[in-house]
């Protein structure tokens, strides 16, 4: 790019934007809608992923212990569990604690479990978290082989189904986002093509006079990028407003779905969307323009 022309390129881009106001506005609106959808898709994907991570990290293995174990034997079992490959965290739950937890699920006036049952039938147990939730079945099997552990429970059957679901949610949201991005590029390229088509005579003339391709391209790129940024700003404004009020209002109604709300992360999402605006404007212009440069 010849630097003495930068001023000229910007001037041309701004003149063209204001001269073709209706078309510029149409393009900016199209971009805003596309980027808004893209942003919604990103936030949905991120939140779905977050929700899936949380579901997966809730998975734990409970190792029930023989009632006959002495205190030193309990320590030995704990050491063995901790030494098992893939174990992240081990928590001891005594039989008294287990009974208390069960009691808390009933109201104390209706049922006093201690009294009803006579003696505490619940065993001591270890709650174990796996480093990688996907490996929970293998880890559970290894723990089950440790002497002193008489039974292992990790939600067999349910866990496998959950992993199926999380896998598909992740794949589908990625596919959804890619389709949306391609659709946005196509839509934007079409809108920009309209704007360029209206100026094909000028482009033809520039080429015949001896303009290089880049001399013709720059004002259009600047125009495309400006429109992309404008569209992105509108979209980000709407998205940020909408998502913030969603966090504030729906947190209580949808308490079981943890919404991602770290400011630094959201800022990253919004900046990426602005970058997407620039990219869409550039790619859209590039695709549309090349056909008219072949003179």
């Amino acid at each position, binding site marked *: 790019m010849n630097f003495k022309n930068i001023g000229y390129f910007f001037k041309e881009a701004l003149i063209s934007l204001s001269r073709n106001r209706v078309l510029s506005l149409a393009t900016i609106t199209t971009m805003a809608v596309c980027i808004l959808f893209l942003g919604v898709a990103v936030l949905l994907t991120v939140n779905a992923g977050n929700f899936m991570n949380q579901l997966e990290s809730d998975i734990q293995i409970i190792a029930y212990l023989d009632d006959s174990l002495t205190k030193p034997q309990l320590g030995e079992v704990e050491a063995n569990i901790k030494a098992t490959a893939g174990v992240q965290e081990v928590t001891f739950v005594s039989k008294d604690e287990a009974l208390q937890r069960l009691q808390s699920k009933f109201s104390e006036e209706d049922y006093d479990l201690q009294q009803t049952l006579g003696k505490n039938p619940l065993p001591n147990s270890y709650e174990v978290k796996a480093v990688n939730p996907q490996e929970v079945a293998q880890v559970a099997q290894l723990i089950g082989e440790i002497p002193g552990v008489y039974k292992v429970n990790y939600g067999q059957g349910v866990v496998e189904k959950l992993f199926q679901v999380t896998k598909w949610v992740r794949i589908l949201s990625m596919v959804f986002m890619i389709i949306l991005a391609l659709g946005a590029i196509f839509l934007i390229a079409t809108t920009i093509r309209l704007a360029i088509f209206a100026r094909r*005579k000028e482009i033809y*003339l520039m080429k015949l*006079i*001896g303009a290089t391709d880049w001399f013709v391209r720059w004002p259009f790129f600047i125009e495309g990028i400006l429109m992309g940024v404008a569209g992105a700003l509108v979209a980000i404004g709407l998205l940020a407003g909408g998502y913030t009020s969603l966090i504030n209002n729906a947190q209580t109604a949808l308490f079981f779905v943890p919404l991602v709300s770290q400011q630094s992360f959201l800022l990253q999402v919004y900046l990426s969307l602005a970058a997407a605006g620039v990219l869409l404007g550039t790619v859209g212009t590039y695709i549309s323009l090349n056909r008219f440069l072949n003179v």
Partner: protein
Amino acid sequence: MLVQFYNVTKVYRNGVKALNDVSLKIDRGEFIFLMGPSGAGKSTFIKMLFREEVPTQGQIFISSRSIVRMKRSEVPHLRRSMGVVFQDFKLLENKTVAENIAFAMKVVGAGNREIAARTSDVINLVGLKGKENSFPGQLSGGEQQRVGIARAIANRPLLLIADEPSGNLDMATADEIMELLYNINRKGTTVVMATHARELVKKGGKRIITLEAGRVVSDMCALEQQ
């Protein structure tokens, strides 16, 4: 020698043979009329000069350089040595007379001071002094074509190509435009002009190349023809 065509044939993708084995030479400083009925290949010939089209077979040299083998990135430089005048003027409607001419110079990277000086020179040359700030829509057909010519010569081309420059103008205005082109030619610029208008050609006494069905059927001086 400015332009050389060697056995140039052009077949378009739809199968139409627009030029058929055309060979000719054009010297520096010549004024050439390109004649022939519609569809004879005049437009294709002209488009090949500024490399909007390339031959299917044969070679074209301009200033001893093959423009057939020329890289795409070199084409802008070729075109900067030429000026093109169109039948429909092809002025930018939203730019004034002066801006239309300045635009052509800006495109090839001229500086602002040079543009201002040269623009005023060529406006005087084509007789449009006082109309610098008019828009094309405010001018008559003849005046618009003068702007087209001013734009074409702004970059001091070696070769001026005019495609039916008087096709849309009445006889008196056409004569004025021709006078302007002869004037430019007298100052050393080679001119190639495609036209239907026999009257203009006869008066000119210049070299006439006649195309028919893509072939050169005659190449002679106007006086010989009479």
